[in-house]
């Protein structure tokens, strides 16, 4: 099976992030791991591209981020964790419904061609 990458993946990245966050609060790195785990090794995600998607979702109010406080004396970058908002849950349900319709319709057409 071919790996899924580039534009094919980018078009659905936001929906996949919402789905990953439906399993609970997570920071960016954890989200990529969740996506990889569910992608059975076929997702070829450029990990950095996750963050623009997170910023767009946060600006739309679908997710909310907060900085994790570092213990005193520990240096290094802080991590930002994200969680779904009620609006994000509704958006995810809507996108899942749309996706199912898309797969049913397009799948039927493509299967009929063979």
């Amino acid at each position, binding site marked *: 099976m071919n790996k899924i990458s580039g534009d094919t993946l980018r078009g659905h990245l936001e929906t996949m992030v919402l789905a990953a966050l439906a399993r609970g609060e997570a920071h960016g*790195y954890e989200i990529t791991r969740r996506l990889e785990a569910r992608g059975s090794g076929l997702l070829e995600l450029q990990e*950095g591209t996750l963050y623009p998607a997170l910023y767009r979702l946060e600006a739309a109010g679908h997710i909310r981020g907060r900085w994790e406080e570092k213990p005193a004396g520990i240096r290094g*970058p802080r991590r930002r964790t994200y969680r779904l908002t009620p609006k994000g849950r509704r958006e995810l349900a809507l996108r899942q419904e749309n996706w199912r319709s898309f797969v049913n319709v397009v799948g039927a057409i493509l299967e009929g061609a063979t």
Partner: protein
Amino acid sequence: MRQLKAQVERVVHPVRASVGRKMKMREELLGHLTTSYEEGLANGLKEEEAIRRALERFGEPAVLRAELQASVPVVEGILYFAIPFHSRITEAGRTLWKGDDESALRHAWRLCGSVLAACLPYLLGAYALLFGYLAATGTARSSLSECWRFVTAFHGASLVCFFLYIVFLDEVQQALQTAGSSLHRAARIGAWCVPAIAMVLGSGMGVWIIVGKPSPHVTWQLLVAVSVLVPGMLVCPAIALTADRKRREEWESLILDG
């Protein structure tokens, strides 16, 4: 760590966005790369191999840069594109930061001197306009004595507040950090709103005193009302600016760990 940080800079530096937004991007992307690198080490990779793998998985800087830029609100992107010397101005502003061996008092004097120097063209322009107005209308200069008092009190109080704020800068920052992020956020919003309100009210009252010529009693009431806004007018932007400075210092100090 240096290579990871350099990669983050390659991606984020050219993005046209506010300083705060870019600092958030920097810290978050570096956090991701660091975790990826540490995971590589934990899996038995050598240091250089762990860095190479982390960078490879992270993606092409040009692609990430374009996507980050697309995530910035359009208005903000245009605003920062329209200020071509923005980064140079920011860098120049860093010369006003407190030196390592500099006392708080000396730093405050230095900053107040810089503020006065920066305001001088504005003040000279304003006085030129005022004298032009007086000459055009044939008004005696003595009739503006209340206005002079107002202007002197307003600017004098502003400068004193600014001076005191700089003297107690570290204490104020410490208090804000203890108070939590909500106060920081309030200070940032105030940084835009309070000076704007103070400028509009101050200018409006100044014009009223010149044109309306209220009694001295009313004039002093106006002065007191405006003076209440003066501390916020300078302290709020100063808090917002120093919060940015704090984050940038933290970011730059990270390189020492590498």
